């Protein structure tokens, strides 16, 4: 029986632990300095917004860990001594391991802006960040959020939920335009304006200005404009949280370099989740993918490996999702912000400008490559199958109804989409049809 020690109680570390427990009876210890129990990082915003309490964000009840014999330890690891397999904690204690899993997650990026360490300036990643935000955003007149990514828009929504006016600085010409194609970016721009977010596109942060007490009092943009504010949220992305592991024999580039079995260069040391960098990613995946699902999938594979069934990490078709204020977004397959040379696209937008579907396909074979859907829920299973089997755009459009995942009674846009398709691709007609409500109810 090995003692498997996991640093990090996020989705990657916890999934690993659960999988090990499911398949074996090794001794498991999960360490984190952040919180005693596993909670859903993706739900941090909802605590601030009053949709949930911290308790509600814990995916498992507290007795779960004792019952499944997963030991928890709340402490910060200061150093790992690989030669004698020992961890050193910040309080001076130490712990032996037989196998070590590094699942230390990410940290918020900071780009050396003047004033980035003032009081009232902070990113959003950890529970402590949330507490900081709570404490420093009471009775403030304006918050500025810098960086137009997913965490940025969440932070904007958080302040907005408490009626704190938000100025949102986005470097790109349209929101999240480094990932989203222009039409989709613009759709979100409009929605942010609809929510009275003071969205500043193509605007950079130059400086954060302090008051006499070392607190932020304003920011200055690239164009020299000064905006008074009492909180600045810095969200220019995240990077692997590996500083305390640096300067050792562990191979770290941007993240901890791992092979397909999530093994590092040191025997018995593994890495998973946000902190891991896959040495040779599959062609349709990137080396570092800091999303929830990847942490979970790596944990699933690694947990099996550590219980004795060596399993390679083989992610399937890419998928992701997010919500921008009221608009839900899902994506399956690969949709870049710009079309590749071989790619064509079909785009449909609803009249209200709040729903759209974009499908990218290969010009030559007409096979679909990816889809972005906003405001319409689609079935993961169906899209996964279509993409794997290389279905053509025509097939997909004709059978769109199969992929719909909206609740009953919701308006079905399939006929509209099919008409739009017939208009855009006159040589490829599909018949316009939708199942009636009765058909759907008695399916």
């Amino acid at each position: 029986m090995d003692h498997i020690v996991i640093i990090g109680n996020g989705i990657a570390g916890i999934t690993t632990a659960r999988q090990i427990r499911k398949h074996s009876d090794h001794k498991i210890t999960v360490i984190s300095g952040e919180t005693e129990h596993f909670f859903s990082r993706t739900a941090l915003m909802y605590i601030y917004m009053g949709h949930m309490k911290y308790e509600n964000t814990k995916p498992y009840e507290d007795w779960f860990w004792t019952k499944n014999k997963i030991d928890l330890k709340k402490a910060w690891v200061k150093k790992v001594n690989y030669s004698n397999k020992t961890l050193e904690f910040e309080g001076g204690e130490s712990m032996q391991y037989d196998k070590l899993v590094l699942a230390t997650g990410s940290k918020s990026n900071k780009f050396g802006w003047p004033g980035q360490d003032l009081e009232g300036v902070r990113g959003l990643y950890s529970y402590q960040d949330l507490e900081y935000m709570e404490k420093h955003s009471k009775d403030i007149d304006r918050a500025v959020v810098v960086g137009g990514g997913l965490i940025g828009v969440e932070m904007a929504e958080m302040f907005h939920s408490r009626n704190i006016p938000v100025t949102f600085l986005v470097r790109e010409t349209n929101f999240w335009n480094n990932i989203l194609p222009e039409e989709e970016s613009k759709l979100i721009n409009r929605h942010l304006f609809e929510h009275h977010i003071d969205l500043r596109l193509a605007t950079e942060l130059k400086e954060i200005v302090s008051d006499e007490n070392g607190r932020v009092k304003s920011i200055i943009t690239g164009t020299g404009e000064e905006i008074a504010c009492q909180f600045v949220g810095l969200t220019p992305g995240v990077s692997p949280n590996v500083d305390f592991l640096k300067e050792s024999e562990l191979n770290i580039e941007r993240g901890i370099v791992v092979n397909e079995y999530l093994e590092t260069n040191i025997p018995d040391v593994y890495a998973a989740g946000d902190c891991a960098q896959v040495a040779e990613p599959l062609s349709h995946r990137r080396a570092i993918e800091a999303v929830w699902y990847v942490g979970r999938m790596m944990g699933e594979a690694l947990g099996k490996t550590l219980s004795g069934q060596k399993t390679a990490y083989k992610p399937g078709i890419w998928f992701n999702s997010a919500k921008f204020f009221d608009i839900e977004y899902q994506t399956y397959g690969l949709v870049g912000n710009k079309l590749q040379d071989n790619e064509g696209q079909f785009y449909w937008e609803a009249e209200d400008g709040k729903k759209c579907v974009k499908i990218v396909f290969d010009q030559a074979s007409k096979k679909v490559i990816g889809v972005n859907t906003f405001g319409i829920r689609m079935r993961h299973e169906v899209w996964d199958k279509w993409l794997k089997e290389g279905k053509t755009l025509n097939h997909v459009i004709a059978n769109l109804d199969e992929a719909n995942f909206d609740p009953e009674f919701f308006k079905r846009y399939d006929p509209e989409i099919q008409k739009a398709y017939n208009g855009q691709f006159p040589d490829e007609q599909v018949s316009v049809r939708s199942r009636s409500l009765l058909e759907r109810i008695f399916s």
Partner: protein
Amino acid sequence: MKLVRTSGLIIFLLSFGLFLGLFFMSEYKLTEEIFASKVKPNHQELLKPEMSKMFDKSYSLSIPFVNQINAAVDNVNGQLRAEQKWNDIIWDDYSGSLTKASAGGLIVDSTWLLFVLVFIGGTIGALMFILPQVQLAGPAGIKHNGIFFNALNNRGWVGISAGTLLVVFYILIYFYDAYMMNWIILVEPLKKLINPAGESSQWFLYGFLYTFAVVVMGIRMLVKYRHSKYQMVRTASVMFFQLAFAFLIPEILVRLNQPYFDFKNMWPLDYDFFDAWHIDMLTKSGGIGIFMFAWGITLFVVGVPTFVFFFGKRWYCSWVCGCGGLAETAGDPFRQLSDKSTEAWQIERFLIHGVFVFGVIMTGLVLYNFFGGDFGFSLNKWIIVSVVVATAVGLSLWHMKKYPDMGSKKVMTVAGSIAGFVVLAVVFSEVSVFKKYIPVDGSNFNFYSYDVRTVYGFMIGSLFSGVIGTGFYPFMGNRVWCRFGCPLAAYLGFVQRFKSKFRITTNGGQCISCGNCSTYCEMGIDVRWYAQRGQNIVRSSCVGCGVCSAVCPRGVLNLENGDESTRFTDPILIGNDSIKVTE
């Protein structure tokens, strides 16, 4: 717009304050004429010596007035008992009729005006508060900002006050109706409008307030969920069924000299359906009565299995039912307060199935009694109390020892509630108002088959479904009754669990374990547990309200009816080729 909203709140609170204030605003004066016209001739002689002391005395509050009337009857009965004149004992409840006839002052002189001020004023105020949200609360979407900071929604002082008020109100309705005579009189004009020959009672008042709450809060629900057509259709449906089927149609039937009948209610929720008086009333009312009787039986024998098979229990619980209707409208602000723990689930299964079994046995005995059978026994109540309490304590201690890490909340609660139940029954049997509900006499339980019905009606029908079921909304969420007590929900749940096309599907691997679904599930189902492992949610308690699906920020959940074979599947999270089936 904000101003409109604030004024609306003020108007509503004024109307509500006026309503509460009305409890104190009238006077009662019993006169000889009233006495003569309301009391049965053979009782007049008995009661006159006692009651004549009250004649022409004016009371400014209902409570002492009612108490005095009850005391008069009690005194007379006490004497009759002492003299062993069992046949002369007065069973009639004169407190209601005498109090009503004796009431005077503001409430009687200006009933219509007060009605308008309270209910029309209240409606206008409430709508002024609710409707501007369309604009003020921003574009359509989930509106849960600040729920857990709110003193109403999160068991703060407003919630505690509201809950206390509700509990008091239910206790008044069930056991001290004469105290709230002013409120009963307040809705009299409406009763007369629907049925000129009718008289308002506490049940009419209750039905009206209930419907009022469902409709006004239903409008709030429609505004809140205007982005979700499923929620809108469903809410409109419960509003309609409450207004038409539960409130108007029965009243109109009575006006047309037909039996009072709620076509959407059914056994075993409608626990007096098989009571002798009810069967008699229906079967003696000609064709329409027979039809009602047959309808009531068909509904639960054929209707439930058929509809639950196609749609799940939601067709009833969150589309039609009155209890569900109130929970889904007036109760919506409290849905997040339901307990999601596994222990709560275990307690739920114990309680709801316990009530179901109790209800079935009770009905069996009632029918046995109806067809002429009866049995009786008597037991020393103090022995029973000691045995039950000792067993409960023993069981809890044993469990604590056996499962130290699971905690003993579950068994303690179950054992405690049984013990509490019995002790409560005995205590109630000593309190005069409750005496009639607990058939005990001296130190013995003298049980006859029909008495089971009386206890059920009191313990389950009144205390559980009313006082706790609704009164505890602000403490334990809006489905306390539906989740822990309703025998019909248990029955619908069996069918839903074992023979139905309904399930909630999870969308591949998209769940981020955020917890919104579990938090807002009013039935306390830990939806996330299933969603994060990619498993269909097939739970007997799910009422299909669809809120989990609505609040999910990643579009993971969908209420669907589909082929039965695809209902129970292995958990599967799509997107990971390393692993096929996962847990």
